[in-house]
């Protein structure tokens, strides 16, 4: 408990300093004498990692530091691939839900990324380097989503994971049918109100999207054939992303709980010729793991949350392990800014619940979410050529005692525990200075207001010539006389 409080206090301070905790220049960095958890090719004791221009240039036990490389001595420490959180709602300016329409695909998280969200820094302090920023679950078809790197201190335009396909949020079950909060009096309840309706809304939207795509295809064909005076179809910002889904240019991340609705969405996807990329939460995934694996979808689940609502009653903490056994690519996610700081522990739970190996547990928060997000060529393991996105722990990250020491993205140190501790006094002093300044200004203002209220009419009265007493002259509107 005490530890948690200290940790929270530390983060609170650091929080205020996006510009101070700026990462170093990239270049050549050499992390030496660490236990390197590569995830793809075993653990390397007393290993080193060479980083050049943000990429992993070499990994091994017998590397030598090149001349001029910045050395990070990690003696006794553990280096793992940066954690990838496949379900996050951090770094969003404004609401994460566009809850008005049943199909809110026009809304785009990428439009409202908030690089100043303190949760970016806090999650960095938990070893997270990449997060899948999802729209909320208020609609059968929700908003567009984006994968970001937690580049704290950079503007919104530099957060997205370049090259990662954009996504779209779908949601099944209780949330999109508004089961868990009442519609206020006087407001017409939104359709759909049942699971049947959720399916119908999704199908209807794709029927429209298919028709919309056909209109554009026809138009482009006729235009290409030289036809004149053609009026183009209207662009529809709601249907554009659905066309992209059908064209395989946008991943579907579907919030779901129950086995029946998961099977339903697989059928609907087949009907319209697209694939669900990940089932999110997927708490009953263990019941239909074979079907999920066959559909090619991944499963991104919680470690051990259950029974917090009706549709979560059949959840079990063995879900991740059971789905893994049946060949589903599984990740464990946070869906929560706080829990994202301990995803290492969430992953470790599947060793106890289901008996996953340590490496398979690590995969739940590294390589597997990278595969699910289509970024495994760039992230998710410590391999030559991949982005140098790394988390350095003081102990084995699967231990509850493990604390992140440094987090690197593209070879830059974005979180450094020692630097954070060192900067706290400076930040506290700056804060006190500003508070004092504000207090002083407020007092000065108060004093001024007090003196303003004193009547200052006396000198004028003395000057006033006697003949001007007449009310008639006084009655004019000030400033209006001509």
């Amino acid at each position, binding site marked *: 408990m005490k530890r948690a409080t200290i940790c929270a206090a530390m983060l609170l301070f650091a929080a205020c300093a996006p510009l101070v905790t700026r990462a170093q220049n990239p270049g050549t960095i050499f992390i030496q004498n660490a236990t390197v958890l590569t995830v793809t090719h075993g653990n390397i004791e007393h290993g080193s990692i060479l980083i050049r221009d943000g990429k992993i240039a070499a990994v091994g036990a017998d590397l030598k530091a090149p001349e001029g490389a910045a050395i990070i001595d990690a003696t006794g420490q553990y280096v793992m691939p940066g954690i990838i959180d496949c379900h996050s709602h951090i770094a969003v300016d404004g609401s994460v839900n566009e*809850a*008005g329409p049943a199909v809110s695909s*026009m809304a785009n998280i990428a439009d*409202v990324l908030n690089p100043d969200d303190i949760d970016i820094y806090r999650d960095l302090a938990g070893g997270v380097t990449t997060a899948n920023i999802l729209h909320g679950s208020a609609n059968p078809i929700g908003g567009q989503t984006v994968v970001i790197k937690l580049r704290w201190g950079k503007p919104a335009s530099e957060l997205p994971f370049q090259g990662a396909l954009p996504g779209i949020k779908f949601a099944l079950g209780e949330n999109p049918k508004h089961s868990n909060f009442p519609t206020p009096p006087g407001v017409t309840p*939104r359709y759909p109100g049942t699971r049947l309706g959720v399916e119908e809304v999704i199908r209807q939207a794709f029927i429209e999207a298919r028709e919309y795509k056909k209109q554009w295809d026809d138009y482009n064909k006729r235009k290409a054939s030289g036809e004149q005076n053609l009026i183009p179809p209207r662009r529809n910002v*709601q249907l554009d992303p659905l066309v992209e889904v059908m064209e395989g240019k946008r991943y579907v991340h579907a919030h779901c709980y129950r086995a029946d609705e998961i099977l339903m969405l697989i059928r609907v996807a087949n009907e319209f010729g697209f694939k669900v990329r990940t089932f999110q939460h997927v708490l009953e995934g263990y019941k239909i793991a074979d079907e999920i694996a066959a559909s090619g979808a991944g499963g991104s689940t919680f470690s051990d949350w259950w029974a917090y609502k009706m549709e979560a009653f059949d959840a079990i903490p063995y879900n991740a392990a059971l789905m893994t056994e049946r060949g589903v690519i599984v990740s464990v996610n946070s869906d929560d800014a706080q829990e994202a700081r301990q995803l290492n522990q969430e992953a470790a739970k599947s060793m106890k619940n289901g008996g996953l190996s340590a490496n398979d547990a690590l995969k739940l928060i590294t390589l597997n979410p990278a595969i699910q997000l289509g970024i495994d060529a760039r992230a998710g393991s410590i391999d030559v050529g991949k982005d140098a996105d790394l988390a350095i722990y003081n102990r084995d990250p699967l231990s509850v005692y493990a604390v992140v020491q440094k987090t690197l993205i593209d070879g830059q140190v974005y979180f450094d525990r020692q630097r954070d501790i060192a900067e706290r006094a400076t*930040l506290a002093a700056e804060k006190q200075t500003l508070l004092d300044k504000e207090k002083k200004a407020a007092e000065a203002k108060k004093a001024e207001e007090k003196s303003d209220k004193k009547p200052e009419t006396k000198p004028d009265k003395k000057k006033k010539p006697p003949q001007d*007493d007449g009310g008639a002259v006084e009655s004019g509107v000030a400033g209006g006389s*001509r």
Partner: protein
Amino acid sequence: MNRRLRRRSIPVVVLALCAAILIGWACAARGEGGEPRYFAVKGARIVPVSGAVIENGTVVIAKGLIQAVGTNVTIPPEAWVIDGAGLTVYPGLIDAGTNIGLAQDEDGKKPARGAGAAGPEDRPATTPWRVAADELKTDDKRIESWRNAGFTTALTVPEGGIFPGQATVIDLGGERAGDYVVNPRASVPVSFKPVGGFFGFPDSLMGTIAYVRQVLDDTTWYAQAEPIYQANPTKTERVPYDRTEVVLNRALQANEIVLLPANNTIQILRAIRLTGEWKIRAVLYGGQQGYEVAAALASSKIPVLVNLKWPERAKDGDPEAEQNLRDLRFRDRAPGTPAALAKAGVKFALYSGGLDGPKDIFKSVKRATDAGLTPDAALRAMTLDAADILGLSDRLGSIAPGKIANLVITDGDIFNEKTKVKHVFVDGRWFEIHEEAAPEKPGEKKPEDDDGARAKQAKGVEGVGR
């Protein structure tokens, strides 16, 4: 004041003026025929803004326009002459963002129902056809109090909704509402404030941005489709009439500026990006964290209207509440934004935003100059640059022949708090400014001028002094 008074009577006029300044004096606004149209301010210090300061110069006003300015100009015989000795003449100040003259109502704020918001035909909180000029209320007390402090022009912006209407540039004086209007359709303000309240669309920032994107797309589509239909009515399906598309298309074709909200760094950078995507002639409003992104603003070449209502700690907030360092920094540094923008070469103007009156406006400007903005740059931002951003620099913002005769005449430096405004010209109409009426304190009866003071209070006189 009698029209028969001619130049010969000037000493009398000047005496009368002096008396008027001391005692407060006014005539009711007159009907047709009574107004002088020619004035000259003689022997004054003139700050034209567009050029060097002229000592001992003369400005001649004829029929609402500035006819001549300089040290060697001929004063027309019919002109009323104001002795400018000891006085300084500035271009009238421009408040680049107010709702002066507009009634505050809830129109346009009602959200559309979400469930049906499936297509482009749904237009929640969208009334771009409302033009501020059509709704001007000239009995707004602020017209006078702003004018008395030296403001002659304002951009008055309709509020309420995502596309609340079109903003109007008004001069702060005239006989009828129509006289006030300089440009009725000066700007299309946009708000990203969600209107749906969880049960209607849009109820999120991202939804609102998506909605604006759709409306602009629709407008572009209409601009493309309508001419094709009109040229081929027998071969093409008719283009449906949509008031929003028609009005916005006309506005964009006329090159009206689009006002985008952007106060903090995130909003400013986002607005720069959206401006590029949407290909609009944008002007950002808010701009208070511009000190952090002045370079990005400069390279975007997008002008900024900076809100002078600097961020403050919440008035009724918990005094014990933990203050965030980022907020503290913002509150401390925001007044440095105009200086930072000036240094980076960003074109900007200042606006009163939610400030209560001219006194607060000048206090806010002082905080900006204390934070490094030169008084010259401040003046420019409140005159010529504001006019330029509003597309009216050929008519407003400086003292030069041919410009609208909007002038403020003071007894000293306009940014000195002891300075008094003596005369204001709006469209060549002369407004003489009175001393501030001392606020009558309840219980403090002043028997000797009871009637006069009462009369002033009853009419809601606003002070001149700042």
